[in-house]
């Protein structure tokens, strides 16, 4: 088989390193760093590559709060001084090196497609009952009242299309007074009542009008504004938008940049790993053609009698390497 490669150590020709199918090993090493080496039986190196590269990649992801891996980012029209009012997109060239890590960076491509999909709307998929944190606006003297609790939302058919209605059960902060509010969609809300389904933020924006105060002070407020949790699959590796990018830079500062550098370096190092799976180590081994293996194999030269030849044939291929 011409696609198989064997390498022998010049210092000790007894030790043969079999790369099996190098192209497959290289592909596996791209998909999961170190997987190609494990396939070749080079377990120590496989585990080492896997720990170092995936460790570095996910350390970067953790430092960047799960958001340093994305295909592109959007700048809002006002920031770009864009006359037609549409946001402008920029490719994240750093993703090229993140892509080299393989499987862990691939969700970004899927998430870009989901983000651009017409299904990514401001509507609800179904009834939700989740934790809420936010504020009540429009109370007496324009005061802002902090609230936390649980919110129950459902979508119903309204006069002008689907409308969101719900109920909030929670407490006022810091007094701890219990409140129970009936909520409805505010049609005059410029930003919309609910954030998009898929966006690079673990929290989904929500703003609803207070229709009725079931329990609590009457003059509490007219608008409930805050966030509800967004499922992991709807924000991880999703393209970033301008406010999110600014938020990450403002809050994390240098750590945001370091997070991206970690993921980039992980991808660049994986080039060495892919190359190692394809070509073997750079030093101490030189290729031996598999077609001529019988002529040059130390086994064949050592086997002098038919019994010895038979014994060598029964031995498994040498995969353990020693310098």
């Amino acid at each position: 088989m011409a696609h198989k490669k064997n390498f022998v150590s010049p210092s000790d020709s007894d030790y043969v390193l079999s790369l099996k199918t190098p192209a497959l090993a290289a592909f596996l090493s791209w998909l999961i760093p170190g997987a190609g080496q494990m396939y070749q039986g080079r377990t120590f190196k496989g585990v080492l590559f896997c720990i170092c590269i995936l460790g570095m990649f996910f350390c970067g992801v953790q430092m960047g709060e799960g958001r340093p891996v994305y295909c592109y980012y959007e700048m809002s029209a006002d920031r770009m001084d864009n006359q037609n009012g549409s946001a402008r997109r920029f490719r994240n060239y750093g993703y090229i090196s993140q892509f080299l890590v393989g499987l862990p960076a691939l969700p970004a491509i899927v998430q870009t497609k989901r983000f651009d999909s017409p299904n990514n709307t401001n509507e609800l998929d179904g009834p939700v009952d989740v934790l809420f944190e936010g504020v009540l606006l429009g109370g007496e003297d324009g005061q802002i009242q902090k609230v936390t609790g649980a919110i129950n939302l459902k979508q119903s058919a309204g006069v002008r299309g689907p409308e969101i209605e719900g109920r909030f059960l929670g407490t006022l902060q810091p007094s701890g007074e219990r409140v129970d509010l009936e909520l409805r969609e505010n049609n005059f809300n410029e930003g919309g009542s609910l954030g998009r389904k898929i966006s690079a933020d673990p929290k989904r924006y929500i703003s609803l009008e207070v229709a009725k105060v079931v329990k609590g002070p009457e003059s509490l407020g007219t608008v409930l504004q805050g966030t509800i949790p967004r499922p992991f699959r709807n924000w991880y590796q999703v393209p970033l938008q301008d406010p999110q990018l600014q938020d990450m830079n403002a809050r994390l500062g240098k750590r945001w940049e370091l997070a991206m550098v970690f993921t980039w370096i992980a991808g660049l190092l994986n080039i060495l790993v892919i190359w190692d799976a394809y070509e073997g180590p750079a030093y101490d081994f030189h290729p031996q053609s598999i077609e001529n293996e019988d002529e040059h194999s130390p086994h064949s030269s050592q086997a002098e009698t038919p019994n010895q030849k038979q014994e060598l044939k029964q031995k498994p291929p040498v995969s353990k390497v020693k310098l």
Partner: protein
Amino acid sequence: MNFIPHSILILAQLPVLYYMFPLTAAISLVYSASRYEDPPAILKKSFRLFMQITVFMLGFLLLLYVLSYKM
């Protein structure tokens, strides 16, 4: 008296520099493992590379610190 804020600025970056150590260790290990096959050789060479990079970077940090102090 501008040299004091400059020096403090460099010292303020030190917590970020802590990330250098695991990063350097991972780079040294992966690089050495792609050069050699024998585990003891990989560990030995990667330790040497780690020390070289660390000494170089700390030396450079010291140089920058001294320069900022003098200015």
